[in-house]
């Protein structure tokens, strides 16, 4: 036994279930669920709860104002709701975002101020109803002339050799064998595909890189209720080609949305891509469940494929893991992913595509990229009407949240194994 499993469960009333798992109801309203092998699966009391992996490491914590989730490679995501209803999300040490609603020029947005590696930037999202619920759709920085979208959409002629200069970068070395860019690009859609996968992996690197985590540790076999991939299943050229076709389709959606920005959620949002076999690239660590109740994790850059369009009242969709890293959900496994998480992935896809289009517009004709016809690039990009940057010091809020999460995790664990009276 390791981690939390070395400690004794307080005495209490024991219920044995059909699968030989146990529920222990102890003093002061504390409840414990134990796996058939005796390891602690979860604990709850007084509105707080925690779940644990079979190796004894903490998987998640839930309190009245904070949710903490640990990813397969040690990533920790912390979500807090603040008194003003804004939401603070840490996706790793010194990185995350503050999200709040804002009204600007007669439009209502959700704005996020991100902090990554000491830099901060904002992204705006506009809300829409889908299947009776509210989702938030990424709002691009710029809209371009239709001919520019066309230039990125259609083949360039002969494939264009291009070097990204990523070799030697820590993030690129970290994902060596899992992701490789093409040497040459037949169209802008292919170039944008490598750009957006590269940017997504680079952004996720700091969260994924820390050693540790519960997965991929050969010394600790998974529990029956957990699934780990024994090895990487890389993003192959065939998978990238399928993503490139989706990028090409998204360019058509973006062109349609650029013509009618007020209709953008309908023309370039998540509902457009909730079709069978659509691929999603995971944008942050996520714990998911399989149909038979197993738990596993997805990391930044893992690719999953939608099985079927979710039903009208569904809050989650079934997706097959197409590529994943060692310790994540194994390739071929079907997992259930909340629709909100798919919206996050689609928003990241569009945000990276937006950055890629800006780079393509600025650098066409240079660094080996073909020149676009001037009819395509002469009209200047139209800046979107989005709210001004947030003035709050998000970095200090995130640092404070990390400390509060440490205290919360300690407090919940201590209360679970306390033998004295429980204060609450």
């Amino acid at each position: 036994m390791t981690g939390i499993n070395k400690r004794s469960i307080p005495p209490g009333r024991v219920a044995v279930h059909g699968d030989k798992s146990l529920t222990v109801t102890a003093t002061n309203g504390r409840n414990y669920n134990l796996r058939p092998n005796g390891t602690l699966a979860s604990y709850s009391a007084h509105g707080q709860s925690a779940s644990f992996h079979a190796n004894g490491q903490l998987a998640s914590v839930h309190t009245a104002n904070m949710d903490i989730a640990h990813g397969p490679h040690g990533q920790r995501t912390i979500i807090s709701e603040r008194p003003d209803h804004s939401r603070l999300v840490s996706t790793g040490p010194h990185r995350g975002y503050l999200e709040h609603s804002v009204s600007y020029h007669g439009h209502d947005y959700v704005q996020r101020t991100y902090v990554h590696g000491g830099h901060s930037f904002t992204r705006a999202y506009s809300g829409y109803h889908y299947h009776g619920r509210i989702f938030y759709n990424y709002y691009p920085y710029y809209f371009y002339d239709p001919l520019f979208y066309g230039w990125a959409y259609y083949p360039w002629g002969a494939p264009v050799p291009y070097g990204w200069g990523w070799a030697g970068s820590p993030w690129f070395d970290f994902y060596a064998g899992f992701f490789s860019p093409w040497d040459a690009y037949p169209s802008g859609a292919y170039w944008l595909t490598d750009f957006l996968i590269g940017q997504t992996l680079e952004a996720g690197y700091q969260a994924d890189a820390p050693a540790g985590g519960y997965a991929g540790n050969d010394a600790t076999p998974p529990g029956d209720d957990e699934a780990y991939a024994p090895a990487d299943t890389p993003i192959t050229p065939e998978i990238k080609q399928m993503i490139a076709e989706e990028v090409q389709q998204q360019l058509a959606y973006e062109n349609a949305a650029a013509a009618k920005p007020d209709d953008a959620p309908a023309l370039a949002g998540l509902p457009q891509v909730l079709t069978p076999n659509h691929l999603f690239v995971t944008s942050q660590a996520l714990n998911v469940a399989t149909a038979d109740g197993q738990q596993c994790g997805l990391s930044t850059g893992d690719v999953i494929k939608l099985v079927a369009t979710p039903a009208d009242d569904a809050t989650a969709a079934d997706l097959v893991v197409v590529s994943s890293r060692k310790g994540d959900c194994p390739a071929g496994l079907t997992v259930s992913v909340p629709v909100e998480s798919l919206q996050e992935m689609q928003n990241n896809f569009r945000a990276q595509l937006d950055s890629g289009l800006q780079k393509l517009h600025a650098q066409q004709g240079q660094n080996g990229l073909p020149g676009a016809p001037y009819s395509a690039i002469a009209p200047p990009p139209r800046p979107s009407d989005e709210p001004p940057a947030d003035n709050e010091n998000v970095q200090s809020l995130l640092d404070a949240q990390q400390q509060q999460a440490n205290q919360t995790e300690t407090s919940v664990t201590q209360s679970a194994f306390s033998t004295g009276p429980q204060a609450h």
Partner: protein
Amino acid sequence: MNMRKLLAAFLFCGIAFTLSAQQPVAPPPKPVNDAPANAAVLKLLQVGMPESVVLDKIHSTSDKFDTSVDALVALKLAGATEAELKAILAQGAASVDPQPAGVPAASGPTLAETMQFIQEKLNDLGKIAWVEFNQDATNGGTSTDTMTNETSNVVADANQCRISYYRKGAQNGKITRDENRAFLLRDVQEIVVKPLEQFENEWLAKNGHPELVVTSTNPPMTVLVLRQPHGEDYTFRFTDANLADRVAKAMLHAVELCGGGNKDKF
């Protein structure tokens, strides 16, 4: 934390859209490549090559240049000097003759169809209103102006290659423009579409007020500028940027059919 509560907090925002199904969209239009000779010059201009080098390249090329209005506008936007444009016209003039007024182009709508489109779309503009948000860089002070613009009685005459219209503008209720205007398409030298705040800021800077900045407009506005010789501008304001682009393309086509554009002769 109760996520439902968080979502409910956002509900007051009055979200506008309700979606239920995938919407089919058409692929974007395919751009036509620049003529090879134009592309070579554009590449040199893009990296800021000296005028003498660009002129040498123009004189030494055996390829024909595209000297259509679109192509010349593209070269001008890329920074071509008057001497470079004249050299290109001289080099390429033998292959591209301007269409006489009223004659249909080799491809695309006729002049009559194009002028009809322009007339309809400009008359549809009617009276529009917007708010401009301003900032004074000298003291950081901000202000807003409520603006209106009315475009009416637009007549796009294909026989005369002439567009006439009535324009009335007001700022905070005070009338600033009230006039009938007209111009000949063959006099149009440049057609530009840009965000209104950019247009306004360029005008303010040019007229001695670089410290005053229009930071944004609500709704976002787009202006179509038809530039004539001696810097005279004819402008049309749009709330729909896509429509502004479409009318600009129709104007460009009409100017070409009417023999307009850069009229410098060798």
